[in-house]
């Protein structure tokens, strides 16, 4: 598939989702309303992904879709992924500044220098707010967490699998390197079973995050060489352009060191997370089984809403 054909395939699937009123255009690529049916499927995927981790008895926590800017800066998001970031700006000026802002608006001029950084940023990955909350020593038997929430990444696209505002279900393990890696192995077993049960084809790869620039090339290669990120990719647009729907990540001591988290034994904590892209799984289901949910196989719906 050529790049032009791929864009057409993206637009075609998005048009089908619009036509079936599953997604509702908002005027910006990657930002859509969702129908009750879309949400029902998405919640079904989330419930199944959550249920898979119940055996670990995780502490379940929800966070708002924003993180403190201090966390956003501490996790090196601007160093690694400046192209995706979403710090929140607001207005803190006086009357004179406000007149200038309104003047710019009326003249349709750029007003970005009339605004200033607030103390929050849009959450880029829903596990980020967890780590600063774990500062200090983990209690005995602690170290399993689950969270779900909205994330933002600035990557406008006609591809309905690539949204600017999307939800993730994440399971997180904090502990010794062995704890985290053996936990990740349990997910390497579990994830294919879930994807198979809902009728999604996939393949598995060691992958990298989209680190920015030349420095990012080194980061990406290091990530792959160290096998830190495993992705389950679903070929919605053909085998050559599969989309990552689930990933299992090992962060080494990155967050443990950054936020001063130690294990119950007092060692610097390592961490890992398993993330389900809920809209991606949902769109993949509509692509695989059609836009009419009443026609989906019982084997699939019995997993999504048992």
């Amino acid at each position, binding site marked *: 598939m050529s790049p032009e054909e791929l864009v057409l395939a993206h637009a075609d699937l998005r048009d089908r989702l619009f036509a079936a009123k599953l997604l509702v255009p908002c005027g910006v690529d990657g930002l859509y309303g969702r129908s009750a049916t879309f949400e029902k499927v998405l919640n079904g995927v989330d419930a199944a992904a959550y249920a898979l981790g119940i055996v670990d008895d995780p502490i379940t926590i929800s966070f708002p879709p924003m993180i403190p800017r201090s966390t956003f800066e501490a996790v090196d998001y601007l160093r690694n992924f400046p192209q995706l970031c979403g710090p929140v700006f607001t207005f803190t000026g006086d009357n004179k500044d406000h007149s200038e802002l309104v003047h710019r608006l009326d003249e349709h001029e750029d007003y970005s220098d009339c605004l200033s950084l607030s103390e929050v940023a849009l959450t880029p990955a829903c596990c980020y707010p967890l780590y600063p909350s774990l500062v200090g020593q983990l209690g005995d038997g602690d170290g399993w967490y689950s969270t779900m929430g909205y994330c933002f990444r600035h990557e406008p696209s006609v591809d309905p699998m690539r949204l600017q505002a999307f939800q993730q279900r994440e399971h997180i393990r904090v502990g010794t390197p062995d704890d985290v890696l053996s936990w990740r192995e349990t997910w390497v077993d579990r994830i294919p079973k879930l994807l198979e049960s809902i009728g999604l084809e996939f393949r598995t790869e060691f992958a990298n995050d989209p680190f920015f620039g*030349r*420095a990012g090339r080194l980061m990406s290669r*290091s990530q792959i*060489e160290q096998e830190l990120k495993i992705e389950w990719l679903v070929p919605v647009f053909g085998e050559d352009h599969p989309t990552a729907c689930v990933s299992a990540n090992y962060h080494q001591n990155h967050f443990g060191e950054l936020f001063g988290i130690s294990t119950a034994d007092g060692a610097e904590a390592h961490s890992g997370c398993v993330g389900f892209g809920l809209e991606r799984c949902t769109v993949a289901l509509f692509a695989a089984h059609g836009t009419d949910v009443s026609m989906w196989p019982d084997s699939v719906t019995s997993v999504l809403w048992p």
Partner: protein
Amino acid sequence: MSERTTTIRTILAKHGKLNGSADTIADDKSLYSAGLTSHASVNVMLALEDEFDIEFPERMLTRSTFETVANLRLALDSLLGEESD
């Protein structure tokens, strides 16, 4: 010790966040096992590029280039030519 190797060690001391001393680590000892993180290796890369006014080509942006003092020296030699004594 060659001037280049000395510069590599100076930059490692400043940006490598190694557990031990960057002055005494053996040429062929893994810097990763001495605590060099991916982020720190990027900072070492940028500092070397600044210092020698070079750009590491794509093929050199791998973990192995930054694995040891000897590998860094080889990479610099191939970009700058052999060092004259």
